[in-house]
């Protein structure tokens, strides 16, 4: 058992007179230890960690984006996903180091507030909470598309488009379930991810064999960069939403067993696994139909690809998988958002009331409502691409700052900073990670950037107004 001290000392008070909760005395493989013999048990293993990462990510990249991405970038969308994966990896490595040095709940927010101070922390923390809401809303709209595709499949003609309604319904149901449900949600998540990986592996293996001509299908002949080079980058910026899951592992860092080993494995592992799945998926999809036709199918393009390969059973399997995947992504995001609210309220950046635990169910009902409520508003807009990009924007800011925080911490080298995993290729990897994260933002639509900047400004003003006196930076 390795004992590790966490020596950052938060101070100050917010406008309501609440001070940040004291830091724990130490971290072991199995617990976080507070004074007076109080311990917080670590219960999530490597499988659970991977399931959070993969479960959050795999929903969007495979089941929502292929059609949109192919429409934007042509077959080179494969490259867009590869670029996204590379950037995610460049960020996941530094994040792993930070997480092993500070295995506490709150993830990126915690690292940045301790490494760079409260102002940056507040912008990232509030941004993370809102970013997760945008992401969850995006997954729910995707879920709505899949559910309405089921209606179409059944031959039920509806006089209106049920996409938004279904998204809202599931959003409300998920929030209610996480408040009232005492079922073992993590175990369910593990099973769902397992099923998804099996279905996808089978489907993609068939698709690859078909694309190389084994079943006589072959590839639709098309120029790789059919839309030019620039759209490859803008598409990478768009589809980056499908890589937003790995840092969610860090939001439950305080609950991961053997954090020094499991956190890096879960984060880097989940990025590598989903990147492979994404790239293969796009390759298979564009090979089967060509980018133009794929683009016309929109959000549920994969269903058509499956139908082309395996007929109705294939379409049904992918429909089911799509429902499961978008559902699990939305669920994971709502839970992470609630963890983010807890981390902020622990540090007095949000009212303490926000992380209150419900006496009847033992669940944080205020935090879950604070996540679930706004999500419904966002779902109601139904803007898939915009939701995705704003979510990406807010996460990319956090990713970039995490890389910067790592460099800051390494240079100042405070006594308490002793990560058990060190990023290879320092300082090049975190520096490139930061540049790539910030760089990707430049390729987004102006609207998304605008909304993102407004969110950051509001976050900063909230911090100045509510908690200007709170200092969270670690002893340096």
């Amino acid at each position, binding site marked *: 058992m390795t004992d590790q001290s966490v020596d950052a000392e938060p101070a100050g008070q917010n406008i309501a007179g609440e001070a940040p909760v004291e830091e724990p005395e130490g971290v072991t493989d199995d617990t976080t230890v507070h004074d007076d013999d109080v311990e917080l048990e670590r219960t999530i293993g490597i499988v659970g960690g991977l399931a959070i990462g993969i479960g959050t990510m795999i929903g969007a990249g495979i089941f929502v984006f292929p059609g949109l991405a192919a429409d934007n970038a042509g077959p080179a969308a494969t490259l867009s996903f590869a670029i996204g994966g590379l950037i995610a990896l460049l960020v996941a490595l530094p994040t792993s180091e930070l997480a092993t040095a500070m295995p506490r709940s709150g993830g990126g927010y915690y690292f940045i507030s301790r490494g760079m101070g409260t102002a940056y922390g507040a912008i990232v923390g509030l941004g993370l909470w809102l970013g997760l809401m945008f992401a969850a809303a995006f997954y729910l709209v995707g879920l709505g598309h899949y559910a309405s595709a089921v209606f179409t499949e059944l031959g039920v003609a509806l006089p209106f488009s049920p996409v938004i309604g279904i998204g809202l319904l599931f959003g409300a149901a998920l929030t209610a379930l*996480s408040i009232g449900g005492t079922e073992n949600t993590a175990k369910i998540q593990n099973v769902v991810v397992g099923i998804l990986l099996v279905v996808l592996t089978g489907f993609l293996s068939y698709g690859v064999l078909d694309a190389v001509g084994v079943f006589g299908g072959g590839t639709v002949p098309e120029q790789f960069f059919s839309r030019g080079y620039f759209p490859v980058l803008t598409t990478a910026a768009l589809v980056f939403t499908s890589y937003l899951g790995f840092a969610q592992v860090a939001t439950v860092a305080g609950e991961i067993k053997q954090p020094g080993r499991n956190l890096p494995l879960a984060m880097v592992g989940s990025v590598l696994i989903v990147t492979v799945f994404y790239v293969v998926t796009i390759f298979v999809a564009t090979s089967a139909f060509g980018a133009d036709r794929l683009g016309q199918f929109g959000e549920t393009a994969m269903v058509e690809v499956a139908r082309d390969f395996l007929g109705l059973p294939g379409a049904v399997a992918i429909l089911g998988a799509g429902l499961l995947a978008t559902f699990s992504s939305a669920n994971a995001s709502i839970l992470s958002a609630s963890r983010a609210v807890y981390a902020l309220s*622990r540090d007095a950046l949000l009212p303490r009331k926000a992380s209150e635990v419900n006496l009847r169910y033992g669940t944080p009902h205020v935090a879950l409502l604070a996540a679930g409520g706004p999500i419904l508003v966002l779902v109601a807009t139904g803007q898939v691409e915009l939701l995705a990009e704003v979510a990406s924007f807010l996460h990319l800011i956090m990713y970039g700052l995490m890389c910067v925080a790592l460099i800051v911490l390494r240079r100042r080298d405070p006594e308490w900073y002793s990560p058990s995993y060190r990023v290879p290729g320092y300082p090049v990897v975190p520096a490139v990670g930061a540049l790539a994260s910030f760089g990707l933002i430049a390729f987004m639509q102006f609207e998304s950037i605008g909304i993102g900047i407004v969110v950051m400004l509001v976050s900063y003003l909230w911090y100045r107004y509510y908690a200007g006196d709170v200092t969270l930076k670690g002893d340096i």
Partner: protein
Amino acid sequence: MTDRPSILVPLRVLEGESVPEGVPELLANAHVVLLGYHVIPEQTAPGQAQMQFEDRATERLEEYETIFEDAGATVERRLVFTHDGQKTIDRTTTEHDCLAVVVPNATGPVEDVLVAVRGAVGIDRLARVVAGLFGETDVSVTLYHVARADETDEDAGTLLAGLEDRLGDLGMDTSTIETRVDRDRDPLDAIVEAADAFDTVVMGESDPSLSTFVFGMPADQVADRFLGPVLVVQRGPASDGVETDGEA
């Protein structure tokens, strides 16, 4: 008092589980590791529950600590917020090197104890618990064994005599110890039935197997059916063999 056996007393402190009557007296000669734990759903961060409930839980634990100390035990206190109560109990048992875990049920004054002996494995720890807790008291101890079909009466007798000798080595007055052997019965039913006439049961923990996976640990089943407290003697760290890494 160097050979006070360490006994874990797990209590779901915030769900109204308190120290049952008779248990403090039962553990008067023990070193009690008092584990207050609170199981929270996955949606909740353990730290979140801690923020809200730590003071209340600590207050109650302090009360319980006093109760055990007044009865004569030495006490060590732990408060844990967890998603997985069993993991917390197992970990605390290992970390504090506890010989046994109590399934806390109420009892009257303890006058007689049934010690269920399964086999020679782990018999030393069993002896240390029994001798440590009851060696210097008037409690009458009955060693009980359910013989398997391929086991002769002689084998069973040797087993119990061996334990009796060991208890004698540890300073117990062996003349008060009784022995009893049954055979051709389901051990579980036999123990529960025999236990009826006793105030407390001491028994060993079984090795995990398919049937324990399906039906639960025999010790837990006995505890469910026998209404008094059960002391479950833990397998030693050495025989732990396979380190369980949870879901990994």
